């Protein structure tokens, strides 16, 4: 048994605050090196002899040597107008997509969406920079030969023709930034333990695009999309492959609900990674919130 004094001392130490950066100081006998002016008695301090550098009188930034500056002479043009609210779509060309397929970076036997393109590691975007997903461009449209079910955020008519010529299907789909964050890296999102968000309706200025059958918008009438497929095949002069007798018809026609962001998972569900189960809510108010669009 320890004596009374040791016990008291130990209690005192227990009651004292922990050693941290804010309550330590150097030991009393620590010797610091004396500060020496290594330059000796130099007067110019390495700034050269005379002139702007020695006196610190450089020209201000943007100074053009006395002539009338360009900023004053060129008139105002709002190139960057509404820069903060304009949406950006970082591009992926059809050639790059074909390369991802050839290298087995994406699985063709499943529907391809923004998650599978991001999982390749060859594409990334930043939500903080107002990036709203993939813009599929038409470079390499002649070389493209893959039968896929694709979902992108923006395309052109030529790209749609190139994909449908090979028997594939394509939809354009809008995701709001919180949904994009979940889709960009699903694992880190599921680790947070938050319910899967529901996707919002696209903003007013893109609603026309995403409900347009010519661009295969996800809010367009499916029957009008069928008509548009036929029209595009006639315009570009190719024969539309018949989806009716297709062995992978179910895969090609898989679509997400307008509120859904992951295949097979509904908004409002929670994915528990530690116990490897999915928690499905049953509360009516909860379901009403997650099953209605605003």
């Amino acid at each position, binding site marked *: 048994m320890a004596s009374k004094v040791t016990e008291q001392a130990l209690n005192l130490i227990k009651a004292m605050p922990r050693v941290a950066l804010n309550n330590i100081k150097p030991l009393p006998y620590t010797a610091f090196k004396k500060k020496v002016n290594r330059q000796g008695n130099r007067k110019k301090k390495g700034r050269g002899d005379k002139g702007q550098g020695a006196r610190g009188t450089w020209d201000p930034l943007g100074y053009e040597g006395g002539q009338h500056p360009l900023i004053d002479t*060129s008139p105002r043009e*709002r190139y960057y*107008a509404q820069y903060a609210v304009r949406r950006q779509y970082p591009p992926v060309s059809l050639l790059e997509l074909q390369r991802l397929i050839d290298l087995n970076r994406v699985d063709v036997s499943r529907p391809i969406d923004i998650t599978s393109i991001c999982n390749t590691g060859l594409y990334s975007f930043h939500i903080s920079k107002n990036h709203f997903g993939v813009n599929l461009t038409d470079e390499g449209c002649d070389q493209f030969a893959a039968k896929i079910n694709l979902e992108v955020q923006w395309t052109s008519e*030529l790209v749609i023709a190139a994909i449908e010529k090979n028997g594939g299907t394509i939809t354009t789909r809008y995701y709001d930034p919180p949904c994009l964050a979940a889709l960009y890296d699903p694992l880190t999102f599921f680790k947070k333990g938050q319910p899967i968000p529901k996707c919002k*309706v696209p903003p007013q200025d893109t609603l026309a695009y995403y409900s347009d059958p010519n661009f295969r918008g996800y809010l367009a009438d499916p029957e009008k999309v069928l008509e548009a497929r*036929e*029209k595009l095949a*006639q315009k570009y002069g190719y024969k539309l492959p018949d989806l009716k007798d297709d062995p992978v018809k179910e895969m090609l026609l898989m679509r997400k609900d307008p509120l859904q962001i992951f295949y097979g998972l509904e908004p409002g569900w929670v994915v528990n990674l530690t116990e490897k189960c999915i928690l499905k809510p049953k509360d009516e108010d909860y379901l009403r919130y997650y099953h209605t669009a605003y």
Partner: protein
Amino acid sequence: MAASLVKSFAGLCIQARNVVALTNGVYNLKKNVIFSSSMRQFSAIQIKSTEQKSLSKCRLHTSPMSMTTPELKEWREQRVIDRFYRLPWGAWIRTQGGRKKGLYKRRPRIRWKLQQHIFCNYHQNKLLDKLVTPKWKEPKYFVDSPYEPYSQRTNSFWHPNHRKFYP
């Protein structure tokens, strides 16, 4: 490649109305097959109007336009991004002075010429690059931008136009 496809098929373009009349029978067969089982019906979105409404005409700039001088003073030049546009390969474009003045007394050729947007020269490009933050030098991916054809430079040593290496 893409442009040539469009050009070659431009003559084959068929009016939409004719197509519907021609192939009406085909649709009726397929209508019930497609999009019946695949879409889950747990939500219903009703779109009332798809008319485009222009965004509010406020001048919004998110990122700061300030730089620090060698003397560590903060330098602000708001006027740069109000007047100039930076292409991803480093060139700046601008408008011309006097483009709205006395147009009635100018010749048509001069009047047309004044409306063109022109490139800044080498020294002006370097000067303007110092006045903005790196954020403004990043490429912008606007889908409906009129400056997209100029976003890539060709036939230059520093900006080669050959393809990326695809294994």
